């Protein structure tokens, strides 16, 4: 009798980690489901269009890219506005990146002459800031549409660590 209960106890002890693991796995699935739910609610009850790679991203609610000169906003572009500009495709970091050139975006905002450009992003996933001289803003400096529906600035000449994701502002300056 005592041996039997001892064996049951040992069996119970060995089953405990497995039970905990099962609970952890369930918690993991629940957390992922919660993330999808939070995203769905935050997007106002619509599924995120840019979440799947390769789809046409509409961008997060309220997301815009502003062109500024001397603190004045010259124009705000929604991702849809930027889609309407001429699109180019470049290869950077081993991947094809497509979107309007930074030059085209600045031209559409009425910027014709500038000495330097400061690209600013949300700054949560990278430095969120990149300063370029006017001569570095060539036809291969592109605002690429990301899978998240935001834009990142990329170029074959730009170091991987210098790219800015979730771009929010293009600030031009004249000396």
């Amino acid at each position: 009798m005592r041996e039997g209960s001892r064996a049951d106890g040992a069996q119970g002890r060995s089953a405990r980690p497995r039970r905990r693991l099962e609970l952890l796995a369930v918690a993991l699935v629940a957390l992922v489901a919660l993330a999808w739910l939070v995203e769905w609610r935050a997007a106002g009850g619509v599924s995120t269009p840019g979440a799947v790679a390769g789809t046409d991203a509409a961008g997060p609610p309220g997301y815009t890219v502003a062109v500024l000169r001397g603190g004045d906003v010259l124009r705000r572009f929604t991702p849809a506005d930027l889609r309407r500009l001429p699109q180019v495709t470049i290869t950077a970091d081993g991947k094809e990146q497509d979107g309007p050139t930074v030059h085209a975006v600045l031209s559409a905002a009425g910027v014709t002459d500038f000495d330097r450009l400061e690209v600013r992003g949300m700054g949560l996933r990278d430095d969120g800031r990149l300063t370029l001289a006017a001569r570095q803003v060539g036809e291969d400096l592109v605002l690429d549409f990301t899978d998240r529906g935001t834009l990142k600035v990329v170029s074959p000449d730009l170091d991987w660590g210098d790219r800015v994701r979730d771009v929010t502002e293009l600030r031009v300056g004249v000396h």
Partner: protein
Amino acid sequence: MSRNSASASTDSLFWSFTLRDVLLVAIVADLIVLAKAFMRIPLHVPGHTGVVVVALFVVAAGLIDRRGAATLVGLLAGLLAAVFGLGAIPLVTWVKYVAMGATVDVGLLLVPGLLERRAALLVVGAFANLAKLSAAVAIGLLLELPLGFLFWGLGYAATTHVVFGAIGGLLGFYVVRELRKVPVLAARRDQGRDDT
């Protein structure tokens, strides 16, 4: 014996670290920072770096037989990353690594013999990488970033973080299993007592 067995005592906590343990913490933290700075996996999917980083946290936990080892690695890796200017905001990088390390340590407490269980490391690895994402979201909330922006693509990112974290946990399992065959790297929980 696994360190998270029922007989584990308080002398396995991180203030009892030996010189060997401290050196291993420093080495693994350096490897994490080097991986972050120089390693490129052209997958372009959120959370893919978790394959390597989670594996390194598991390796730290597997080779250093002390509670809190993974958290300490996270603290140091975050500090190094902040010092070397990796990541946008030093606090974000630091909190991300601490969250990953702490999650691995909590996993060790919750699942006895974690490091010998493939399935357990799959789950805990997934949690560790998800902790990194959660830390970033939490800091985004603290910084009062727009919610619509912050949560945009969160479900997709959470899914990919879980997948890559699980792969990292599995990779860590195999690396620890092989490294433990090397005498100098095999975890020695009795060493701390002998030294004192």
